[in-house]
């Protein structure tokens, strides 16, 4: 019923899954992606809530006609660009080397 894999492929997947390298890859991935997701969601919801219920604070003028609301909104852009950049750096340095090695092992084992 499910996607078919050959015995050889199945064994290769099982072996990689049980290995220390994969556990480390998964730990590094989850360790970055999950806390970061919680962080940007909280940060975004804080912005939505402030827009709704903290009018006086949001209306505070910062420079000229630029108020806190605009700065807060622009900071959402900054944080989005920053998190995207941090993730790319993390993935390139900490995830890709392990993932590439495991994929090569798999290809060798199943003879692709």
């Amino acid at each position, binding site marked *: 019923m499910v*996607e078919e894999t050959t015995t050889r492929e199945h064994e290769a*997947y099982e072996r990689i899954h049980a290995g220390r390298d994969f556990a480390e890859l998964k730990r590094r991935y989850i360790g970055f*992606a999950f806390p970061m997701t919680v962080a940007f969601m909280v940060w975004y919801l804080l912005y939505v809530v402030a827009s709704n219920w903290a009018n006086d604070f949001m209306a505070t003028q910062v420079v000229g006609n630029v108020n806190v609301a605009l700065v807060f*909104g622009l900071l959402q*852009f900054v944080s989005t660009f920053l998190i995207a950049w941090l993730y790319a750096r993390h993935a390139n340095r900490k995830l890709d080397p*392990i993932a590439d090695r495991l994929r090569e092992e798999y290809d060798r084992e199943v003879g692709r």
Partner: protein
Amino acid sequence: MSTHDSMIPLAQDTSHRPVTVTLFVLVVLVTIGITIWASRQTRTATDYYAGGRSFTGVQNGFAVAGDYMSAASFLGISGAIALTGYDGFLYSIGFLVAWLVALLLVAELLRNSGRYTMADQLAFRMRQRPVRTAASVSTVVVSIFYLLAQMVGAGALVSLLLEVEGDAAKNLTIAAVGALMIFYVTVGGMKGTTWVQIVKAVLLMGGTILITVLVLAEFNFNISDMLGGAAENSGAGQAFLEPGLKYGVDTTTKIDFLSLGLALVLGTAGLPHILIRFYTVPTAKQARSSVLWAISLIGAFYLMTLVLGFGAAALLSEDAYGQVADSAGNLASPLLAEEVGGGAGSNGGAVLLALIAAVAFATILAVVAGLTLTSASSVAHDIYANVIRRGKATEHDEVKVARGAAIAIGAVAIALAIPAQDLNIAFLVALAFAVAASANVPALVYNLFWKRFNTRGALWSIYGGLTSAVVLVFFSPVVSGKGVDANGNNLSLFPTDVDFHWFPLDNPGIVSIPLGFLLGWVGTMTARDRTAEDKYDELDVRALTGAGAEKAVTH
């Protein structure tokens, strides 16, 4: 996007019309040329569904941005800012932040574990037929809602930009847009559609950068002056620059906005037409690069809409600003372009207005093509090849069915969009995001990160999230009982004398999203599926490393 039928002509003089028509024809000719070229490169099913997985991250990044930024965001958000000030900007932030969900949790893992459709990823370890049926139903529903909103908008917008009046002209526009989109999808497949989206994204960014620079130059690049001018001109004063003009009316509208914000931020990563774009690149690394490019383009674009919106409020004459209000905001960018080009009646104004109109037209074409391709792929690959033929269909038959499905879906969209023009269906885009967030995202996330997740959990979250979002909206004020606006336009789908609403919010996300997740959890815990659990290890390895993932086609 507005669906009001009270559109008024763009300007008293029509000097821009020949240029506009020429540019529209040019857009059509270029995209037809691309499609025919792409059809020659399309041989296998992987070519048709996934462009041979041979696009680069940069190309796909532009295509993703082109697929995502609809005319609703191009004309709608700048228009919303021009009319309601800061609250228009709130929208765009949700649309952008949402991409982090796609980047961190979905894009790469999906690229590694799926093949052509959203359902592939679930079917990897679930019972094929029920799960594919559910995912396909959700895909088609989300895509049709979105498509319908775009098509109805296209009819109003193109006739507005070309200044043709009357129902016949609008019907003809919808039919022509529909025919073009069917042509792109049936003939060009994913390759043609992708290139149309890339061209559109380049045009959109180019046009927006040009107008933004011209607007800022009017204020000697002093943003504070522009904001001050906008606040003064709008008549709302400093309140124009603060949140609250649109969503801050009372507690219900505030909770409604929170509900919308949740759907926007979670829904993007569950939009099927966005998800299948990640299959068009050779590796997960290129999928990551696609999202990074898309985030840069979309972020830059939304920052510029801020200038377009506040710029329009600051620079437009009272007369022109009135036209923007009558068009529910859609004319803000085109009229602003005319203004910074030298004003109505000038050659520069005519050329820039025509240019922005052509960009809007290209935008509509690219988005509707992406949506049609997505639904057609799901019907052919999930329903026909795997549910009906149980995986025994040949590639040739599958692609033939996909082409037929594209024609059928396109025809249905035209047939529904023409009568829908007189109805207020502006809520459909937000509903598409809500369904994606309530039905698709719980299933995708659970499947990737929860070993115990099984077929029943997937079915409950998809059908439960989908049904609750649609039912809540059906009994919400956007369908009946919202009343009329200041100009007497009906704010609901049904006539003003019908009122059966009991759900207080326009946006169902705050209820339907937790419900989708909860049902997925309850469904999973009340069933046991050893096969799905055993297969999880394979999915886990494949998703994170790309071992055994689909490879690019080499011709």
